Structure formats: C-alpha cells, structure tokens
C-alpha cells in the first residue's frame, strides 16, 4: 500500500499548467510581455517613450552641457531612424533597428543641472514626475552625478551617468540603478603613471593642487598612489576651494617647495586658471634638482585645452575618448556629429551618445523598459564598436572597463580642434581593479528599484 497522494488526474493538471507556463513567452506578443513588466515607474503607455537629459545649460560647464545635449539629440535622431545612423552601424549589438526603442518613438525632455547638486536633483525629479521620463542621463560633475544617481535609485528609474570621473560614482556611492560608461580617477592614474615614468623618470617629487570635492579627492588619491608606487615622492597636497579663480597664492609656494612636478587635480575653469597661474609663475621654464619642472593634468578635455590656450602644449593627461581616434565607431560618430554641427564632438558628447545607445540597446535586448530588466541586460554586457574598443559593463559595480587614452597638449596644432595628441592607448588590463579595491570600498550596489 502506498501513502502517496499522487493521482493520475493531479499529474495531468500539474503537467498542463507547467507546460502552459513554459509556453507563455512564445505565445505572448510584445505588448503582453511589456504588460507583464508593467510594475515599474513611468511605464510608457502610448507610442512614445521619454528620456530625460539632465545637463548643465547654465553655469561654468554650460559649453560642455551644450555639447552633451547635441550628442543626445543626435542619438535620438539615430534611434528614431534619422540621419546616417552613426554608431548604430558599428555597434557590435544589432538589437537596435532605427525604429525607436521597443517600437516606440524616442522623445526627450531636458533639465538644467547648473552644475549644482540641488538644482540637478530638482530638475531630474521634475522630469521623472512631471514629464514621465523613464531614464535620466547627463551631468558634468561628479558631485552632481552622485546626487542624481541617488535620486534615480530612490525614484526607481535608470541613471546613465554622463561625464563623471570620481572613483566614488561607481565606488562608495554606487547604486543598482546607476551606470557609468566614462572612466575614473583610478584609471587615469593607472594609465598615466607608466607614461610619466618613461618620460620623467622615477626620481621625482610631486606637489599636488587638488579641487576640494569628491572628484578632486579621489583623483589625487589615485595619482599619488600610482606615482609613489613607481618611486616618486609627494611633497605636498593642497586642497583648493572650488570657487577659487586666482590660484597665484596656491602656486607661489610650489616655487621653492623642492618639488619638480606639479599635478593639477583640477577640471574645467579651475584647471584653466590654475594652469595659467603656474605658467605665469615660470614653472615650465624652471629647473629643480637639475631637472626640468613638469606639470601634469590627470583629466583633460578638449574644451578645457581650448580655454587654457598655448599653456597646454606638451602637458600630459588622460581622456576617455578623442575625436582623432581612427576606429570605425569613432569615425562614424565624428562624421555624423561633424556634419550636423560643423565641429568634432568632445569626450563629454561621446560618452553621452554612447550611454543613450547602450540604454536603448539594453531595453531592446531585455524587451522591456523596466529598470530591473535593463539593469540585468547591462550587467556584464560586453560590446565593441562604440569608440573605445572592447568594453564591458562590470556587473558588480556598473563601471565600464575599456582602454584609456593618455594624451599630450599638441605642440603644433593644425586647427582650433587639434589641441591634444594621443600618446598611448593604455589597454584595459592595465587600468582594471578589483571590485573590493580600497579606493572604491564602502557603499553597496543594493537592489534595483523599479519604482512602482
């Protein structure tokens, strides 16, 4: 005698239900699939989907913000099937068809971050709540990126970071809903250090001037560690208020400090002004310990180089991307952008364009706009053809890993755009770090929040 409750009728019922459940994805059409994931914030119901572009449209980074916005508009045009398709033609993933995202036409709203955390959060909030933005992207400051990333995590939308270079964005402040394509301070230092060693030797003493906020601190920590590891000494690290315009009183003490290298952990207007002061004080002609005095700017951008004028000539730094790259993806992007706007794109424009493409592609592959579905599609995603060679979105911290460019201010520019020359393309393996690296420690990625 058996004690089993197993009956033939019960077995048939269970088998039918299991078979039906397994067959569901092949039976349901796209709309039913989307409905199955409808439990998320701002699920698009009509024939359009709205993206929120949150960039500095006023304040000191307005030019960078304007370039980001141009890139976003170009990306939207390409996603909707307009123009020449740009990087969609070179992208290794072929999920995008030029018919919007998941068949919905892409529309966008814009916000002004003013490069202020509170203003950036307010404009992102407004785009999410009032305009129904399904994703927020943009920014030209790590302070802003960290603040908006936190807001997007709380609200339940994806944040595709624009230009943010602090280790903290995908370090202690990382969030499950946030993704960064741009490189970071650690990567800059890891790429730059061997080049500096080859050019300037191992017997050097560096003096650091550092912008007093999250990006400056992590950039300085990274470059100090990398240069000390190759034998350099650190004479001093002086924190400079972000609002400083005249750096003369910070540069003057460098003169007789015994240092023979000045590292300017400054960005944007800060970098332009500190470099100008350093050049005015004759540091570039100075000899210390029998060696030429050198200046290093760990994070470069073409727009900054333009502001600093002749002063950047011969100065080393790093960058995420440069328009002079000759891979097919970069060429396609420069052509699309250049023909539309009449000048080559900046690295800020590049990362913003790529982030929009990556988001759209992830939505297509996931078959949903649900942030959790998109996060899953982006985590561990490997791709190529977007200008940086083979790239991977690491699942554990949502940071892209790819090659890094070491650049130098060009000695003989041939045009107003030709300001930086690529000295070396540092391979990804050299700039990669463990997830639990001390410079990225603290904070939890947490779980994705779909908002609803």
């Amino acid at each position, binding site marked *: 005698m058996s004690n089993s409750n197993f009956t033939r009728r019960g077995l048939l019922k269970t088998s039918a239900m299991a078979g039906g459940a397994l067959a569901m994805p092949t039976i349901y059409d796209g709309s039913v699939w989307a409905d199955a994931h409808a439990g998320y914030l701002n699920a698009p119901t009509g024939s359009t989907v709205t993206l929120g572009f949150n960039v500095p449209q*006023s*304040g*000191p*980074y*307005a*030019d960078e913000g*304007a370039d980001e916005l141009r890139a976003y508009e170009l990306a939207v045009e390409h996603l909707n099937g307009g123009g020449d398709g740009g990087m969609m033609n070179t992208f290794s993933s072929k999920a995008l068809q030029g018919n919007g995202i998941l068949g919905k036409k892409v529309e966008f709203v814009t916000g002004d971050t003013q490069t202020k955390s509170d203003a950036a959060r307010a404009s992102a909030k407004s785009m999410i709540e009032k305009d129904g933005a399904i994703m927020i992207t943009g920014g030209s400051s790590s302070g802003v990126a960290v603040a908006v990333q936190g807001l997007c995590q709380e609200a339940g939308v994806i944040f595709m970071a624009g230009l943010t270079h602090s280790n903290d964005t995908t370090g202690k402040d990382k969030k499950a809903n946030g993704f960064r394509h741009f490189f970071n301070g650690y990567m800059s230092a890891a790429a730059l250090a061997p080049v500096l060693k080859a050019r300037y030797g191992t017997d050097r003493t560096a003096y650091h001037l550092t912008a007093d906020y999250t990006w400056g601190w992590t950039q300085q920590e990274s470059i100090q560690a990398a240069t000390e590891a190759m034998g350099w000494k650190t004479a*001093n690290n*002086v*924190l400079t*208020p972000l*609002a400083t*315009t*005249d750096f*003369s*009183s*910070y540069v*003057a*003490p460098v*003169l*007789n400090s015994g240092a023979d290298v000045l590292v300017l952990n400054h960005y944007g*207007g800060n970098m*332009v*002004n500190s470099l*100008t*002061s350093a050049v*005015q*004080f*004759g540091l570039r*002609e*100075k000899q210390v310990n029998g060696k030429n005095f050198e200046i290093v700017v760990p994070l470069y951008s073409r*727009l900054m180089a*333009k*502001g*600093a*004028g*002749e*002063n950047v000539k011969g100065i080393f730094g790093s960058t995420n991307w440069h*328009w*002079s790259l000759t891979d097919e993806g970069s060429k396609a992007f*420069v*052509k699309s952008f*250049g*023909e539309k706007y009449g*000048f*080559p794109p900046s690295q800020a424009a590049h990362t913003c364009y790529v982030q929009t493409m990556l988001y759209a592609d992830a939505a297509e592959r996931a078959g949903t706009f649900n942030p959790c579905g998109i996060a899953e599609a982006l985590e561990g995603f490997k791709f190529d053809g977007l200008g940086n060679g083979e790239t991977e979105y690491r699942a554990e911290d949502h940071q892209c890993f790819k090659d890094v460019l070491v650049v130098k201010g060009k000695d003989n520019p*041939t*045009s107003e*755009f*030709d300001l930086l020359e690529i000295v070396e393309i540092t391979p990804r393996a050299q700039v990669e770090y463990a997830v639990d690296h001390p410079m990225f420690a603290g904070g939890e990625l947490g779980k994705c929040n779909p908002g609803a």
Partner: protein
Amino acid sequence: MDVIILQLLNGLDKGSAYALIALGLTLIFGTLGVVNFAHGALFMLGAFCAVTLQKILSLSFETIDPTKTDFLGNPAKIKTPYIESWFGPELGSSIIDWSVPLAILFAIPIMIGVGYIMERGLIKHFYKRPHADQILVTFGLAIVIQEVIKQFYGANPIPTPAPDAFKGSFDFGSLLGFDPNVVIYPYWRLVYFFFAALIIAAVFGFLQFTTFGMVVRAGMADRETVGLLGINIDRRFTIMFGIAAAVAGLAGVMYAPINSPNYHMGMDFLVLSFVVVVVGGMGSLPGAVLAGFLLGILESFSSMNEIKQILPGIDQIIIYLVAIIILLVRPRGLMGRKGVMED
C-alpha cells in the same frame, strides 16, 4: 621668508583688483547713493573688451589648402588674419600680440558709454527707491549682462594672453639679496599692480585737483546745497557713474591675461568687493582702497599651507571673518563717516 614675500606680492596684486572695483562701487555709492550690484558685470565687460578687440584684430579670411585635410577629411581651410595680409605677417602679428594693452583705448569710451546708458536708462529711476530695490534691479541687470555675454562668447574661458614682451617673471629676490630664481613674480602681475596704483592715483587726483572733482566732492558732502548754488550736480554725478564704469572696465581689461575671461568672472569679484567697501567704510574712497589691499593680502596669507594645516578651510572664510571682526570693533568700517547709510 621667500614664501612670505611672494604671498605679500600676491596679496598686493589681488588687492589691487579688489581696490579698483571697490573704488568704483564707492564712487557710485558716494555720488548717487546707489548700491550697484552690476559693478562686477562692468568689470567682466572690461575683460570682454580685451577679448573683443583680440577677436576683431584676429578677423581672418579663409583659403583652401588642398595638401591638408580637416577633421572630416575635406580639404582644410587655412585662416589668415586680415591685419597680417595688410601690414605683413610680422607687424600684423605684433599688433594682435599687443591687443590687451590696445584694448585700454578701446575700452575707455565703451565703458563710459555703457555706464552713461545704464545710469540714464535704468538706475536713475531708482534713486528715490529703497536700497533693496536698487540692489534687486542692479543684480538683475548684472544677470542680463552676463547672459548676453554668454550668448555671444559661450561659457568657457577665452584665453587672452599678455604681449610676449611681458611673458615670464621678474627676479624680485635678486634685488633683496636672495639666490637667483627664488623670489620671482610674473611681469604682467607687476604691470597690473602698477596700473591699478596709477588709476587709483588718477581718480584721487581728478577728485582732488580739478574743479569738476571739487564740485563732485562738494555734492557728495551736501548735494542740496550744491544744487542750490545753481550747479547741475546730477549731470556731474552721471559722468562720475561713467568714470566708475570705466575704472571697473579698465580693471577688467588688464585682468584678462591673468585669468582667461569668462562670463561669470564679475560675480566672482562682486561679493568680495562689497565686503571690501563695507570694511573700508561705506562712501569712503581711501577706505575702499585700504580695505582692498588689506583683504587681498589676508586672503593670500590664509592660502598658505602652513596656515591651512592649523586652521583648515581658513582660506575660504578669512575675508568674512575679518569683516565681522572689523565691523564689531568699528561698525562704520575702517574709514567710514558718520551718517552714511544711517537713518
């Protein structure tokens, strides 16, 4: 010791910019009784006079060079400044190189004109209104001027170098018995200091030794009595507004090579300059100059690492801290007169 001398020089240099802006602010306040929050914008406009003249002098025509390509692979367009084709490459490039000093001549009529239009067109309607209204309207005007400049020139700083002859540094230390190249100071910053001193002396001389200046000073002391004597004091005060605008503008022109001008530079100086005016004593011209140099020097010394290690962040608050202390000890400022802004 060398660091102290360098910071003293830095302080004098910064102080000369503060003093020039504060001098103009005080002139306007002393004559017209207006608290002009657009004064920083006038300083910025001056710097953009230098940028504009540099752009005018660099106006170029394009020729196609088939041997070179642009970023899209099309034949490259080569730009040649008109001035170089008219006067030859050598003379033409030296004229462009000297655009900042030349901009002084360019800026004076423009800034006097801007000041005159501002006063006649807007500010005169606010003389009898409360100071809060004046602050609001002039602050609004400053934002409008900023946005107009941003529209035309963008938000990024625009490099405006000093002439090649002033590049490099002067070895100050060798005069004081130091080793060579220990105490050096950029030539252009020294030029700025002496230029500021000259302008300050010229303004004081103008007010002290000319009939016009005497009438203005009399008007500042007792406007009604001067009016009763049949002198059109309002007209003179309008001219003084133009002169104050020109002083701010010239401070801006000469500042352009020190920090690449951007549309926001006026605001960066405005708040500090107001603190300078208040510390110096509202309405006191010598007070404004004295406080400008004093706060400039204090700011420089507080940036020294030795001081920041003892008092972290002191460089960000020193000016306000000193302002509070001075106002607690001398509520009218260093050289303030009784009755100014006191009902």
